[in-house]
């Protein structure tokens, strides 16, 4: 057994970092850290390339390889370090390359740029064309932290991502990794750790915002001796991917938080439940667990303290409802991941009937910071009742899409306008959707609301796991409500009739409305169904299923009415209520739309204005996409 483990560890660590040996005390950990720092403190430049999923999709691995080749070709292998890191967060501008120590940031880098980057680095210059350019002011920025997207953030949890090769534990050590664990194991009792987390008022980042310390205490005090801790990495909210970025980019941070939690709660075993859609997260986390085991940071007698703790990774298989705590417990046990009645909370009766503490990835990632720097420091960030930072995935119709980390309580407007850079193509902001399918849409007039757990709920939405989807004037709010209801009816496990049938009926009504078949009384019926589904469903999926409908009704009722009464879609989205035509004044008959129309619905002589046959047109929108003269009109 040991032999097998050792070969695995040696294999992985040989690739990056030095030899692995068991650390038997905190002193040995600090000695190792000092050695790593000394080895690295040579002032030699380090080129980092983001290999997170976003940049990866833009072929950042090719950029990494090109940089490696270029370094090799110039014989600079000893003089320049090259590092592949996790997600930097500015996914819109990927692939991102940052050079340390100058922190010069290059955006949208292509493999062909490698030579210029190296040449500039050797001459202490910058490659001007690869710098970030503000789309509005046209100003260019050299350093990463000067770019408005980053400047207005407080990247406490995500900040290390850009410095760390997630597959190399030495990088995490160099950033002070496992210092909090060392501190807890030497200077703090489990009660102290628990008290610190309680004092920090850390609220669960997965959705509900329940105080983590209180939950920990419940599990700790439960009578059963055997207890479990679980990382909920079944990030299922569409539009949110911060947990993915953390697990992929800095897995040891999450692990360290989990070990601290296990120490405080008195658990000897932990699980990480990761959704299968995140293969890189599973890989990096598995490697991190192996490395931590190799160094004795997991297993028996951790750092010579007498504390034992093991971690196992379980993969999910694509079921949104399995992210609910009792469902996740079932899934780990090997049952179908459906929610159970929670007369007794999972904190008291979870995995195999034992007390089980579940927190989401981001919550766990906060713990090492709280323990290392103290609850008082943590309480200095955020607003009343909402301490610390929150990571949002700012996506949709916004210029700077990516992961954003801000202190809780800053206004929504600051996130969307200052960090997000506003709406593309000068379009008008319409709403921002937060909280995933359980959340709601917040309109313009509430943009100055501070973002925290409580205020978002007052607006009829919620924090959820931090998805923030920006919508502009071209998004139809009835269509958005229909979209979420479609999602929820598919993901409802079907156990409760009210949820199974309620989501289905609401979807049918919404679909009829978007088809122009809405009738008077539909809105009232929706409200009634929403009430019943909310009141009579077992788990949060059903209890909050109506939120997307209710919040859009609350702020955009006139849009529903236009669909029902005037058979009109004001945002020009709902296919049955729109038609495509060509403006003969603008059309020069180039034929691009005609060649690309899948329905062959466009006719006319080339070089003279073309015509769309509305009966044949499937409203796919390709003509609109390809027209260079804006001649295609939607009415």
């Amino acid at each position, binding site marked *: 057994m040991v032999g097998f483990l050792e070969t695995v560890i040696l294999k992985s660590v040989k690739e990056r970092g030095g030899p692995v040996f068991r650390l038997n005390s905190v002193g040995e950990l600090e000695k190792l850290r000092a050695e790593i720092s000394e080895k690295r403190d040579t002032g030699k430049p380090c080129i980092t390339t983001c290999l997170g999923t976003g940049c990866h999709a833009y072929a950042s691995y090719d950029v990494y390889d090109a940089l490696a080749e270029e370094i090799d070709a110039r014989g600079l292998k000893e003089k320049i370090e090259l590092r592949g890191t996790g997600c930097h967060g500015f996914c819109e501008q990927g692939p991102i390359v940052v050079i340390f120590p100058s922190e010069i940031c290059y955006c949208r880098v292509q493999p062909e740029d490698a030579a210029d980057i190296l040449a500039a680095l050797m001459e202490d210059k910058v490659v001007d064309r690869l710098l970030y350019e503000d789309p509005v002011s046209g100003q260019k920025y050299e350093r990463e932290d000067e770019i408005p997207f980053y400047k207005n953030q407080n990247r406490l949890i995500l900040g290390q991502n850009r410095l760390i090769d997630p597959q190399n534990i030495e990088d995490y050590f160099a950033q002070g990794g496992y210092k909090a664990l060392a501190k807890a194991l030497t200077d703090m009792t489990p009660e102290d750790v628990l008290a610190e987390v309680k004092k920090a008022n850390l609220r669960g980042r997965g959705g509900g915002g329940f105080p983590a310390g209180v939950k920990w205490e419940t599990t700790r005090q439960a009578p059963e001796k055997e207890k479990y801790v679980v990382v909920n990495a079944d990030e299922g909210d569409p539009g949110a991917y911060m947990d993915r970025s953390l697990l992929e980019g800095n897995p040891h941070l999450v692990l360290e938080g989990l070990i601290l939690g296990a120490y405080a709660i008195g658990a000897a075993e932990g699980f990480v439940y990761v959704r*299968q859609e995140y293969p890189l997260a599973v890989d990096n986390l598995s490697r991190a667990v192996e490395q931590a085991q190799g160094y004795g940071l997991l297993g028996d007698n951790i750092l010579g303290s007498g504390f034992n703790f093991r971690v196992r990774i379980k993969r999910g298989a694509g079921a949104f409802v399995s992210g609910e705590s009792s469902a996740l417990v079932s899934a780990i046990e090997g049952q179908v991941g459906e929610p159970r009645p929670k007369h007794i909370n999972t904190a008291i009766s979870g995995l195999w009937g034992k007390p089980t503490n579940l927190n989401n990835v981001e919550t766990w990632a906060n713990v090492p910071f709280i323990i290392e720097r103290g609850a008082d420091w943590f309480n200095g960030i955020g607003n009343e009742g909402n301490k610390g930072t929150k990571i949002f995935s700012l996506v949709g119709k916004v210029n700077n899409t990516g992961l954003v980390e801000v202190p809780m309580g800053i206004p929504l407007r600051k996130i969307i306008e200052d960090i997000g850079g506003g709406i593309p193509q000068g379009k008008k902001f319409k709403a921002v959707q937060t909280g995933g399918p359980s959340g709601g849409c917040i309109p313009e007039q509430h943009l100055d609301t501070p973002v925290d757990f409580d205020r978002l709920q007052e607006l009829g939405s919620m924090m959820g796991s931090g998805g923030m989807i920006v919508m502009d004037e071209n998004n139809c709010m009835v269509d958005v409500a229909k979209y979420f209801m479609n999602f929820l009816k598919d993901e409802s496990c079907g156990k409760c009739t009210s949820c199974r049938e309620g989501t289905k009926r609401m979807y049918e009504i919404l679909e009829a409305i978007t088809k122009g078949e809405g009738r008077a009384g539909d809105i009232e019926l929706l409200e009634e169904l929403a009430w019943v589904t909310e009141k009579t469903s077992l788990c949060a999926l059903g209890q909050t299923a109506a939120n997307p409908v209710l919040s859009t009704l609350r702020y955009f009722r006139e849009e529903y009415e236009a669909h029902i009464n005037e058979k009109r879609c004001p945002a020009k989205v709902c296919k049955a209520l729109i038609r495509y035509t060509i403006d003969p004044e603008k059309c020069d008959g180039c034929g691009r739309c005609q060649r690309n129309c899948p329905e062959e619905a466009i006719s006319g002589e080339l070089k003279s204005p073309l015509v769309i046959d509305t009966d044949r047109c499937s409203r796919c929108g390709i003509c609109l996409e390809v027209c260079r003269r804006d001649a295609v009109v939607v009415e």
Partner: protein
Amino acid sequence: MEVKEIDQVMEKYGSDPADILGILMDIQEKERYLPRETLDYLSKKLDLPMTKLYRMATFYEALSLKPLGRHQIHVCMGTACHVRGAARILDKLESQLSIKAGEVTPDLNFGLKTVNCVGACALGPVVQVDGEYHGNMSALKVERMLKKYSGSENKEAE
């Protein structure tokens, strides 16, 4: 799948019935579906009722009782992709492949599925083919993307 291979998968998980989901997923990855005979065998070996295996297979999106395509296309229907026009991409794929979401082309080359979010929201609309991401998709880019995968299939055949 040969009995020996199934045994290997089970051994990887210590033949623990609690790890049945992991076992099923490994088989799904290898076979592109869960063959009836394999489920029969697992049911006997792990002493799990067949009904439970079917329940798992039909509950989880990643599991399938019918073979998936050699190239499995996942169209992300997450919110970020939706507001940027994912429905149009799906329409185009459906018309291009002449199948509906959830189906497989008759030659089994392409399977088409929608997924609720692949977590690459900044790139929306996103299509994932065999685990590879194609970001900022447009209906126009669909054809080119499909060609790439049809091409690789031909090469393999040579």
